[in-house]
């Protein structure tokens, strides 16, 4: 009997099950058709702290717009609007 009690694990707080949020492509939803390379602030949403481009699986953008975003980011990097590599951007 005692063995059962000790094996029973009681959590202090309920385990928060990671609810699977349906990812969507923000460009299709917002109806944006063109990703501007001059707008650094908007492009920063697609970069991580090191300034690298976030993969589609995290941002959920469709392939068509991920290509446009990556091209815009590369152009912005060429024009020194965005850094190639940095630490603790944002």
């Amino acid at each position, binding site marked *: 009997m005692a063995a059962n009690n000790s094996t029973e694990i009681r959590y202090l707080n309920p385990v928060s099950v990671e609810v699977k949020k349906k990812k969507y492509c923000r460009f299709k939803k917002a109806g944006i058709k063109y990703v501007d390379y001059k707008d650094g602030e908007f492009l920063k949403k697609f970069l991580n702290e090191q300034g690298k481009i976030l993969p589609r699986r995290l941002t959920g953008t469709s392939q068509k717009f991920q290509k446009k975003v990556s091209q815009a980011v590369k152009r912005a990097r060429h*024009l020194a609007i965005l850094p190639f590599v940095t630490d603790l951007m944002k």
Partner: protein
Amino acid sequence: MNYYETVFIATPVLSDAQLKELLGKFRGVITENGGQIINEEDWGLRKLAYPIQKKTTGFYYFLEFSGEAAIVDTLETQYRRDERIIRFLTMKQDKYAQEYAAKRRNKNAKKEE
């Protein structure tokens, strides 16, 4: 008749007069070669995200123009020859880019009023 947009960065060590002369020169390059300037924006002195040629700031200038394809080659050779320009980028505007640019122009025009 294509629509292009170009951005170039000039060295920060220029005086105002030199800068105006530089801008006039590139405006002339476009108009002489049969191009037509649609919109210009001077973003002024801005900090660069990384140093270019040991400089950390630069004068950004944005130009939108339309013209034949050959105009871009002459423009870019001018950019390469001029040592005051430290970086440039020209791009052909597709359908959506033109819409975006038009919207942006109206927004700026409205902002100035």
